[in-house]
């Protein structure tokens, strides 16, 4: 029997990016808030100080800061004809665990979606006709517009102190920025980071070939910064140990650097760590949540009653918690009926690797997010007529590090070991770098999440099952984008170049991104969405999924977290300004 704790106004499941933003906003509004986090407390001084944060084996290979599959994992299959098998060690995507969530060890690539992305289906059908989209493609319009979200993007970027250069200020295109981006009410809070030689050479070649390169927006501080919560961030040192690592310099935006020290000053906030929420509890009508049940590491079960439940557990685990709690109708891949688990989508990336003739690139001088990019082939920024696909992505030259366990390029055809391998490794390291595309992943009827019939977690609950494969549309998109990128690569006059467009089938061993989206999709119609435009459950009005990427109806050609953060603020405002005054369905 669970032991019952005193009631709170708000219980938050998970203390990562969305959880910490919601906790801060609602604690500031005077509510009694508790956040329950399955992993440990983490802070810079203890978990990734500059004395040993730069340990590739520990953090990037043994994945010290990530979720252990032993605690929770998923099963995976490419299609419904296969038996799903458990992901026994994470490789293809790397969910976070512990206070700060994946915000501790993200890169900080901080992109807004395009205005047309928010009305994707309507826009594409208007421009290319009703029959242009494949019949099994289940993309849909967002229930919120870019214009509505713009102030919230702005707030998240100011929270983070994002470094970048505006390309569109209030409708006026700005030289040096991304001319395709949606309008911005203000420039980035920090100027762009400096660029290395690889990115500079790419920018030159992109320019020469008629494109418009600009610095990638980065939540790595180009200069020391004080955010609106009064928290101080240090200057990024281009240390080259960023994604998969915590930042020892307080220079990467994260819940730790941007929210938690200010949040913990509220006496009406508390965090419960190493405690995993197992269920959202409902009252006898099934229309109201009464709180959550969680299990701590000693195996003891607790019930935390609360008036509002916020599901901030990261995209995939938001979906699993809704399924395990019986909130919303589970999606059935065979019939296409139901909503929870529907429209799981991901990302379609690809690369072009180059070996230059005689350059010294110093590829280890790197950050999670600097680099030069172009956005000419994203979304519907280019005419898709006759191309046979929709969607796109940004592309360019990032430089996220050349830590040598993982990054040691050699010319094509080099043996994998022995004398020739050693020679080639030594001679290539300084001259090699790669360009990449970051493409969209639209949603389909046969890509979804549900509960696995066979495999269980350590508490005996079913694992979630992922059924996913790349579709023709995405593979054609990747082939087209990669070919454009290779044209720019060729203009850099490399000694050698290999273009690798994304190929199917989707392989859960190959890392692309941790940009898993969908499953608790937001929408205007309860028939094809789990939450409404305020990220509020259609079925249980005091449960919100405030902005985790599980609410994305499909994934666009950008990283998710700027939109995740914007939606977190958007939902916080809806709760403070509307829900508290009149608790009930907001739509």
């Amino acid at each position, binding site marked *: 029997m669970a032991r019952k704790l005193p009631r709170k106004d708000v219980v938050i499941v998970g203390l990562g990016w969305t959880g910490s933003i919601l906790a801060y906003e609602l604690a500031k509004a005077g509510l009694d808030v508790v956040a329950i986090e399955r992993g440990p407390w983490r802070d810079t001084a*203890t978990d990734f*100080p500059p004395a040993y944060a730069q*340990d590739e084996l520990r953090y990037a290979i043994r994945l010290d800061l990530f979720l*252990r*599959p032993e605690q929770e994992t998923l099963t995976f299959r490419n299609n419904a004809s296969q038996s799903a*098998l458990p992901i*026994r060690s994470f490789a293809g995507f790397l969910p976070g665990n512990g206070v700060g969530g994946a915000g501790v060890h993200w890169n900080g690539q901080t992109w807004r979606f395009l205005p047309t992305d928010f009305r994707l289906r309507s826009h594409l059908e208007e421009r290319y006709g009703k029959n242009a989209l494949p019949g099994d493609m289940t993309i849909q319009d967002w229930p919120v517009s870019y214009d509505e979200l713009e102030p919230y993007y702005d707030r998240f970027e100011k929270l983070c102190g994002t470094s970048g250069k505006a390309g569109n200020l209030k409708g006026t295109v700005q030289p040096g920025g991304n001319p395709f981006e949606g309008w911005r009410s203000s420039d980035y809070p920090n100027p762009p980071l400096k660029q290395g030689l690889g990115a500079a050479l790419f920018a030159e070649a992109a320019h020469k070939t008629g494109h418009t390169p600009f610095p990638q927006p980065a939540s790595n501080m180009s200069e020391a910064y004080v955010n609106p919560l009064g928290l101080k961030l240090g200057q990024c040192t281009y240390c080259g140990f960023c994604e998969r690592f915590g930042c020892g*310099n307080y220079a990467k935006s994260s819940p730790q650097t941007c929210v938690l020290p200010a949040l913990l000053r509220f006496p009406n*906030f508390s965090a419960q760590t190493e405690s995993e929420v197992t269920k959202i509890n409902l009252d006898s009508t099934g229309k109201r949540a009464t709180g959550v049940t969680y299990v701590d590491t000693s195996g003891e079960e607790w019930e935390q009653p609360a008036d509002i439940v916020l599901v901030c557990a990261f995209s995939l685990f938001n979906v699993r918690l809704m399924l395990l709690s019986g909130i919303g109708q589970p999606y059935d891949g065979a019939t296409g009926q139901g909503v929870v688990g529907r429209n799981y989508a991901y990302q379609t990336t690809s690369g072009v690797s180059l070996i230059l003739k005689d350059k010294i690139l110093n590829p280890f001088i790197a950050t999670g997010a600097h680099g030069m990019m172009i956005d000419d082939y994203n979304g519907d920024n280019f005419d898709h007529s006759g191309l046979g696909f929709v969607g796109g992505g940004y592309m360019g030259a990032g430089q996220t590090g050349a830590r040598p366990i993982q990054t040691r390029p050699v010319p094509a055809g080099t043996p994998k070991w022995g004398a020739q391998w050693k020679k080639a490794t030594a001679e290539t*390291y300084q001259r090699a770098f790669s360009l990449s595309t970051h493409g969209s992943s639209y949603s389909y009827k046969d890509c979804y999440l549900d509960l696995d019939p066979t495999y269980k977690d350590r508490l005996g609950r079913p694992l979630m099952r992922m059924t996913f494969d790349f579709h023709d549309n995405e593979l054609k998109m990747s082939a087209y984008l990669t070919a454009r990128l290779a044209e720019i690569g060729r203009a850099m006059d490399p000694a050698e170049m290999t273009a690798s467009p994304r190929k199917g089938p989707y392989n859960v061993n190959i890392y692309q991104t941790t940009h898993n989206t969908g499953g608790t999709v937001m929408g205007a119609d309860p028939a094809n969405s789990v939450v409404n435009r305020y990220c509020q459950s259609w079925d249980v009005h005091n449960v919100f999924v405030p902005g985790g990427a599980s609410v994305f109806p499909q994934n666009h050609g950008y990283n998710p977290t700027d939109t995740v953060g914007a939606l977190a603020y958007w939902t916080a405002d809806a709760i403070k300004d509307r829900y508290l005054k009149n608790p009930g369905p907001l739509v």
Partner: protein
Amino acid sequence: MANIVVRSLSRRSFLASTAALIVAGSTPGFARTIVGRMPWEPGSATPPVQVRPGPWMFFTADEAALVEAAVDRLIPPDDRGPGGKDAGCAVYIDRQLAGPYGGAAGLYMRPPFMPGAATQGYQLPGSPAARYRAGLLALADHVRTAFAGKTFRELAPADQDKVLGGLETGAIVLKDVNGAEFFALLLQNTQEGFFADPVYGGNRDMAGWKLVGFPGSRYDYRDWVDQHDKAYPLPPVSIMGRSDWTVRE
């Protein structure tokens, strides 16, 4: 308001007492409630524990002889610097296998174990330590049979390369062990050891980093990021520092 309720033994003291065994800082600790301030405690960080020379911790003497010979073919010594053996790759693998990695700590190891598609990831029940034990035994048997009773270490380098190449391509079939998978594991761990921080027992004198020109754990390149096409001038440094920074024992 500063008030931290720790329901049971604190995580940090738990970690400190097991620090020698773990690479990971986030093995299960104990639940706690955090209110009022950042719960920072002095002396609670978990730096890596330096691998010390000494007897093998996982390998038997025969296994170690085979692995030392193999890593020296995977990364042969040449005029650019030491090979896998002198760089400590076998020591690195030994200590890894004796620790949490060897025991598959943290992985999902629940049954049923079923074969799947290549896209579904590794699905066999063996831990890395068990895979080495079985793989090395089967490899030693194969060599003894194919080379008139010799051990792998006794073979000429060219023959050693032939054996390793045969495993890699699957041309050599081992008894009860997938040779190509075992080879891939051995190669992966050897290269890890060669390029990981020397604190873990390989990459001795930063041989791997010197080979490619990686400066290691320097952590601040603000003065260098826009000095294009110029070689970075400083030698590599490990988490433990550099040997010339400390007095030799």
